[in-house]
C-alpha cells in the first residue's frame, strides 16, 4: 500500500513537473523595469561588428552608465525569424538592429516598436541628424528607432589600374562610359558583378541616375517594371553586358580580393566596403579610392546617391524599454558617433561627429552638399516580396544576359500581386 502511495505520489510529481515545463515554455509580455542605467541586452545580425560594439562600451559606461551585452547573428534570415519570435515572449529585446523600409513599417503596424519621436526632435534641434534622414525613420508622422549606421553607394576603384591606364576619375556619365571602353580595350574588365544577393545596384544606379521620380515610382507601385523607360534602361545594361564591361558572375572570389588582384577595375558598393578592402590588405587612398557615380541623365539638377541606413530599435514590450531608449538617445550624440566611427571606421550620420577615415569624412561632407540628392537604397526602398523576386531576376539576367522583358515581366507579376494585396 505504501509503495503504491509512493508510486502514485511520484506519478503526480512527474505530471506536475511536466505541467511546469509547459508553463515555462509559454510566453507573455514583460513590464518595463524603468531602469535607465545598467547592462542592456543587444541583438544584431552583424555578428562581425560585435568587437566594435564591445569597444564602444567604455564610452557609453563613462557617459550614461550603460553597457551593451551583444549577441551577434551571422545569418540574416535566422536573425529576422528570431526577432519576430521574441516579440511573443517575455524576452523581447531592449535593443536590436533591423532594416528600414517595409520591414520597419511591418513591425510598427503591429505596435511592436517603441516610438522615438522625442529623441529625433532633440537630435534635429542639436544638429545631430538631417531632416532627410528623419524621413527614412518616419512611419505615419512618428519616428521609430535610431540610425545605427549610414552608407553611401559609390564606385570604388583600383588606383593602380587607373594610373597604369592613365585614367582620370570620371565626372560625367559619358566620361564613365569612356573609362569602361578604355579599360575593356586594354583587356581589363571595368565592373564587378555577382548573380547572388547584390544583383540590384547597377539597376538602382541607372534608374535613379536617369530619373529619381521613376525610381521612387517603382517603390510605390506607380511605375511598372515593364514601362518603356525601365525597359530602355535594362537594354542599356544589356548593351554594357554584351560589350564585356562586367566581371564573371559565377566567380566566388571575394569582391575585395578581386579588386585588389585586378580581376576588375571598379566595384559599386556601400561605403562600408572600406573595411573589407582594408581587410584584404589594400590601403585607403593609396591602393583604392572612390568616387560618387555621375548621373546618367545630364539634365538632372542634382546627382542622386543611394544611401542605406540600418536602424537600432527598442521593442515596445521589452522589460528594458527605458534602458534601450536611454542608450538610443546617447547613440545619436556627436560624442557617441565619434567613438563609433573610431571603433567601426564608417561614415557618421551625425555631421558633428569626427570621422576617423579621411576618405569617408570627405565623402560625408561631399554628399551633404546641395549638388547631391540622397535616395533610399533599392534593398530598403522595395517591399520585401518584390525585392526577393527582383534580386533573383536581376541575378538570372546577369548570369544569362538577354531580352530583359521576361525578367521584368516576372518582377512585375510579383509587384502586381503585392500592390493588389495592399489595397
Amino acid at each position: 500500500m505504501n509503495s503504491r502511495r509512493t508510486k502514485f505520489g511520484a506519478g503526480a510529481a512527474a505530471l506536475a513537473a511536466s505541467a511546469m515545463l509547459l508553463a515555462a515554455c509559454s510566453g507573455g509580455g514583460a513590464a518595463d523595469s524603468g531602469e535607465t542605467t545598467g547592462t542592456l541586452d543587444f541583438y544584431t545580425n552583424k555578428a562581425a561588428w560585435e568587437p566594435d560594439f564591445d569597444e564602444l562600451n567604455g564610452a557609453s559606461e563613462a557617459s550614461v552608465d550603460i553597457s551593451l551585452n551583444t549577441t551577434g547573428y551571422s545569418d540574416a534570415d535566422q536573425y529576422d525569424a528570431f526577432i519576430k519570435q521574441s516579440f511573443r515572449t517575455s524576452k523581447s529585446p531592449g535593443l536590436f538592429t533591423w532594416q528600414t523600409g517595409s520591414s520597419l513599417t511591418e513591425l510598427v503596424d503591429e505596435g511592436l516598436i517603441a516610438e522615438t519621436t522625442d529623441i529625433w526632435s532633440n537630435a534635429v534641434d542639436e544638429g545631430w541628424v538631417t531632416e532627410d534622414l528623419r524621413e527614412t525613420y518616419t512611419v505615419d508622422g512618428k519616428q521609430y528607432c535610431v540610425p545605427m549606421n549610414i552608407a553611401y553607394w559609390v564606385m570604388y576603384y583600383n588606383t593602380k589600374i587607373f594610373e597604369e591606364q592613365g585614367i582620370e576619375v570620371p565626372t560625367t556619365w559619358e566620361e564613365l562610359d569612356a573609362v569602361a571602353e578604355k579599360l575593356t580595350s586594354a583587356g581589363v574588365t571595368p565592373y564587378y558583378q555577382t548573380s547572388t544577393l547584390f544583383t540590384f545596384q547597377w539597376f538602382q544606379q541607372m534608374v535613379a541616375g536617369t530619373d529619381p521620380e521613376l525610381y521612387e515610382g517603382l517603390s510605390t507601385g506607380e511605375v511598372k517594371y515593364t514601362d518603356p523607360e525601365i525597359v530602355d534602361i535594362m537594354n542599356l545594361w544589356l548593351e554594357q553586358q554584351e560589350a564585356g564591361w562586367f566581371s564573371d558572375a559565377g566567380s566566388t572570389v571575394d569582391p575585395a580580393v578581386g579588386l585588389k588582384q585586378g580581376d576588375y577595375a571598379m566595384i559599386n558598393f556601400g561605403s562600408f566596403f572600406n573595411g573589407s578592402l582594408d581587410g584584404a590588405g589594400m590601403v585607403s587612398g593609396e591602393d583604392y579610392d572612390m568616387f560618387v557615380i555621375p548621373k546618367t541623365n545630364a539634365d538632372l539638377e542634382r546627382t542622386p546617391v543611394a544611401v542605406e541606413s540600418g536602424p537600432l530599435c527598442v521593442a515596445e514590450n521589452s522589460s528594458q524599454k527605458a534602458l534601450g531608449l536611454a542608450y538610443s538617445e546617447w547613440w545619436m550624440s556627436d560624442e557617441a558617433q565619434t567613438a563609433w566611427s573610431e571603433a567601426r571606421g564608417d561614415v557618421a550620420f551625425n555631421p558633428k561627429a569626427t570621422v576617423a577615415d579621411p576618405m569617408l569624412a570627405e565623402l560625408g561632407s561631399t554628399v551633404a552638399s546641395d549638388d547631391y540628392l540622397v535616395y533610399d537604397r533599392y534593398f530598403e526602398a522595395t517591399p520585401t516580396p518584390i525585392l526577393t523576386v527582383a534580386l533573383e531576376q536581376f541575378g538570372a539576367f546577369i548570369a544569362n544576359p538577354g531580352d530583359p522583358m521576361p525578367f521584368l515581366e516576372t518582377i512585375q507579376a510579383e509587384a502586381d500581386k503585392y500592390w493588389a494585396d495592399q489595397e
Partner: protein
Amino acid sequence: MASRGSQYQWSARGFIAPGVILVAVLLYLPLLWTTFLSFTEYNGLGDPDWIGLGNFAEMFEDPGFIGSLLNTLLWVVGTLLIPVGIGLALALLTWNLPGGVWLRVPFLIPYALSGIGVGLIWSFILSSNGALDQALGAFGITETPRWLVDAPLNTVVMIIAAAWQGVGVNALLFTIGLNSIPKEPLEAARVDGATGGRLFTSILWPMLRPLTAVVVGLSIVASLKTFDIVLSMTKGGPGRVSETLALTMYKETFVNSDYGLGSAIAVFLTIVTMIAAILYLREQLSKKHEI
C-alpha cells in the same frame, strides 16, 4: 474512494505523461500548427488570417515552384542512380576482396562532413575559374561549361557533389547486407556454376532486397529534403533555376516572411515524402518478394 487498481493506473499515467507531453509538444503540435498555418496568410507577426486553399493555389500557379518540383525529382532520380548505384558497385567489387575494407574506407571519410562543408568545398572546385576550370586549363581546355550557372547542369553537378559524400555510407550498408547473406545458398549456386552477373541477379540481388529497400527508401527521403548543399553552392540560383522544394519552403518562410505559403510547401513536401516512402516500402517489403 478510488480502488487500488485505478490508483495504480493513475500513477502509471503520471509516469507516462512527461513523455507523452514532450512528444505532443515537440512533434505533434508543430505538425498541426504548420498544417494550420498553410491555410492562412501570416507574416510571423500579429495573427494568421484564414484564406483556405489560397496558398496551395498560389503554389501551383508559381512557375518557380514547378521548377523547384522538377529539380527535386531530378535529385531523387540522380541520387538513386549515382550514390546508391555506385555504392552498390563499390560494395560488390570490394566484397570478399582481401583488404577490401581499405578500399572502402576513403569513400566513408566525406560522410563525416556536413552538407554545408561539402557545398563549400565543391564551390571552390566548380566556380568560374575555380579548381576544375584551372585544372582543365592546364590541359589546354579553356572553353569549360559554367558548372554552377547554367541549368540543369548546376543541379547535376550538385548531385555529383552529394554523391561524393554519400557513396561511402551506401557501400558500407550494402557490404553489411552482403556479409549477412547465408553461406549455403551462395555455395550451392557456385556449385551449380553461377558466377559474376548470374550470381548477382539470381542470388545476391534478391537476398539483398530488404537492405536495398532501406537504402533506397532513405535515399528517396533524403533527396526529397535536399537543402544544405544547394544553399551553400548556388542559393537556388541564378534566379531560381536550381531551387529544390526544401529551399523554396525556406525562402518563402524566412526570406519573404510568407509563413503561410512556406507552410503550404512544407505540408506538400511532407505528403509527397510520406506517400513515396509508404508506397515504396510497402511494395519492397511485401511478401511477394520473399525468396
